[in-house]
């Protein structure tokens, strides 16, 4: 449900709200010309009515970006990207969407059907022109109606959050309404010059989410774009900033189980999390961007920088990700464990089917005393897919009694795919304990036959076995997300056996 509503929320904001927020300048162009230069960065900043300090911040990022090279160490292959041959600011209204569902790739529709998405929503997801412009009738879940029709229900959520002092809004709004918080924390975990894609994002990001949970507050609901009232669609260069003040607690959901078509091939998001003393942030992602067709044509390049800082003592940051989409995934959600007794966790399922490539993993920096980290990574490769776990566990000399446990399991389906595990361990502390376990296995013919003899179809059998393989990660997801993720795993692997 969150997936569907989130998407509608997104489309809703694209079709309705484009001009509602943030366009306080008198520039009336809808898009910036192709290419990337200082003027474009100024244009974006002006479009969004940003204060001078943020423009300077963006320009610094752009200057750094110009001096940087694309990272090439990941085990992924793709043709050179011409960064000058792209638009960095465009009104998100699509010009030439399909006119009706008849023009949409039947494969995509079949997948929607399997996910149980009603026709109306299928049209919205597939980007059919005009599909998002009227509220859907009949079968919509109640909460969707809330987004579409009932301002009062939407406001209830907002009121509830405001009562607790929680700030949950788009990052553009946060820049306007809470500049002191944004200025203090933006770039404090992922600096502008951190890496090529993060620098690009810092220069040209258009929107994203902002969350602040005040001291001692336990956020009363799972936060997701689902509730992100007034927020714009997730863009090509999304920027997310989440701050949990001392003793605060928040669970944030990102993503969508329905495959989304997107005109932008390159996605370079940045997510920064900050947890102060005794705070906990749980960040869950289901990523299902368009992976390209079965011949490896098209598909999203998902080059994301996600990092959390456990600044305070006893703070905790937990990343859970289910990565099934994108042609290429380059992503390493990481934790900087600065506070004493702080905890970092990374639970990941990454699937590559057909020609998909994933190079994903995590980095755990142990700086404070008694810091602990857990890494559970499940990679599934099918078709010609290539799946790499790349992880770094770094323990500084002061991180006495630091503890890490890493488990990387790979599952192969078929004989043309690949799984690779690249764990880096740098331990500079005598009292630290670091454990690493890795396995590689194959879905065996006898397992499939066993299931089919008990009446399961081949696809259901693969789904069951894969879900069993991923169980330790899936159980970390919030309930309703987990159910969708299970379905999604199975669909992502369709046609991979036999």
């Amino acid at each position, binding site marked *: 449900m969150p997936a569907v509503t989130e998407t509608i929320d997104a489309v809703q904001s694209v079709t309705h709200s484009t001009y509602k927020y943030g366009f306080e300048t008198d520039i009336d162009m809808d898009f910036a010309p192709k290419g990337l230069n200082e003027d474009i960065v100024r244009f974006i900043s002006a479009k969004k009515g940003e204060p001078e300090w943020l423009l300077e911040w963006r320009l610094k990022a752009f200057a750094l970006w110009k001096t940087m090279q694309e990272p090439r160490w990941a085990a992924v292959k793709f043709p050179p990207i011409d960064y000058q041959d792209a638009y960095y600011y465009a009104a998100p209204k699509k010009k030439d969407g399909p006119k009706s569902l008849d023009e949409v790739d039947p494969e995509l529709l079949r997948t929607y059907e399997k996910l149980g998405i009603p026709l109306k929503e299928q049209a919205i997801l597939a980007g059919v022109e005009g599909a998002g412009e009227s509220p859907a009738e009949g079968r919509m879940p109640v909460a969707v109606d809330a987004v579409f029709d009932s301002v009062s229900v939407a406001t209830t959520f907002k009121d509830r959050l405001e009562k607790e002092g929680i700030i949950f809004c788009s990052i553009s709004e946060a820049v306007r309404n809470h500049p002191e918080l944004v200025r203090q924390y933006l770039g404090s975990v992922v600096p502008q010059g951190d890496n090529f894609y993060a620098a690009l994002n810092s220069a040209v990001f258009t929107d994203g989410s902002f969350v602040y949970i005040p001291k001692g507050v336990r956020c009363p609901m799972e936060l997701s774009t689902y509730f992100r009232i007034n927020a714009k669609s997730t863009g090509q260069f999304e920027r997310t900033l989440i701050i949990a003040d001392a003793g605060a607690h928040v669970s944030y959901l990102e993503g969508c189980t329905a495959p989304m078509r997107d005109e932008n091939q390159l996605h370079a998001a940045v997510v920064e999390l900050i947890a102060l003393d005794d705070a906990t942030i749980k960040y869950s992602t289901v990523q299902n961007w368009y992976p390209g067709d079965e011949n490896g044509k098209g598909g999203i390049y998902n080059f994301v920088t996600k990092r959390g800082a456990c600044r305070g003592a006893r703070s905790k940051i937990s990343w859970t990700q289910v990565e099934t989409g994108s042609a290429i995934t380059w992503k390493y959600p990481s934790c900087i464990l600065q506070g004493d007794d702080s905890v970092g966790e990374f639970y990941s399922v990454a699937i590559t089917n057909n020609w998909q490539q994933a190079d994903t993993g995590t980095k755990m920096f142990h700086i404070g005393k008694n810091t602990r980290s857990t890494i559970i990574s499940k990679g599934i490769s099918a078709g010609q897919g290539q799946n790499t776990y790349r992880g770094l566990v770094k323990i500084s000399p002061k991180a006495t009694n630091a503890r890490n446990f890493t488990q990387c399991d790979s599952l192969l389906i078929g004989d043309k795919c690949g799984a690779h595990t690249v764990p880096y361990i740098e331990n500079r502390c005598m009292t630290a304990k670091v454990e690493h376990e890795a396995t590689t296995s194959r879905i065996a*013919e*006898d*397992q499939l*036959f066993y299931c*089919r*003899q*008990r009446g*399961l179809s081949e696809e259901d059998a693969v789904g*069951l076995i894969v879900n069993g393989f991923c169980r330790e990660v899936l159980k970390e997801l919030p309930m309703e997300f987990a159910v969708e993720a299970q379905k999604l795993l199975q669909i992502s692997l369709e046609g991979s056996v036999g």
Partner: protein
Amino acid sequence: MLKIEGLTAEVEGKEILKGIDLEVPTGEIHAIMGPNGSGKSTLSYVLSGREGYEITGGSATFNGQDLLAMEPEERAAAGLFLAFQYPVELPGVGNANFLRTALNAIRRGKGESELDAMQFLKLARERMKALSMPEDMLKRGVNVGFSGGEKKRNEVLQMALLNPSLAILDETDSGLDIDALKIVAEGVNAMRGPNFSSLVITHYQRLLDYIVPDRVHVLMNGRIVQSGGPELAKQLEASGYNSVQAA
């Protein structure tokens, strides 16, 4: 009724079944005995549709349906159950989840309504009690960390839940101590009735002390070379398979 006529099959180009003729009328339990390498397991896999076995001739029908034209899961839905000689482990897949998924797949195939978690649990507990199995077997991963005896009992539990009309037991007795053997036999005997038939494949006569067959067939070198009543099994136990070959 299971009817096999002139069935021949090869594995990797080698002929294993060389013309099997066999009829198991509904309501009867037949035993197939034979030495190692006679084609016993091949017969069970060919009937249940495992890949890697090439049917080169003959036919096999079950209640008039052409078994050999069906997918393994279609055969399961038609009521065919194979108790595996080596039950397979499915790590991370809970036994209860697996059993319910299988049961509902078969119920769907039969056009019956699916059971929800509560209905299933009630049914599973009943069946487990009847087989004196501990309830925690439902919570564990499918066959993961099970002892040999537990795996075979889990097969019998599946059979009891899926309620097949034809059960093929492929050397279910191998590696079982006498107590486990009795539980397996009780499971099969409890299903005995006018709508249930079974093909019990075994190397030894021992199991047939507990599951008394209506007919016994001797499979040697890909053919059924002798058939008779339960006394044939005892005779074999006494004089060995060589006596049959000589006959």
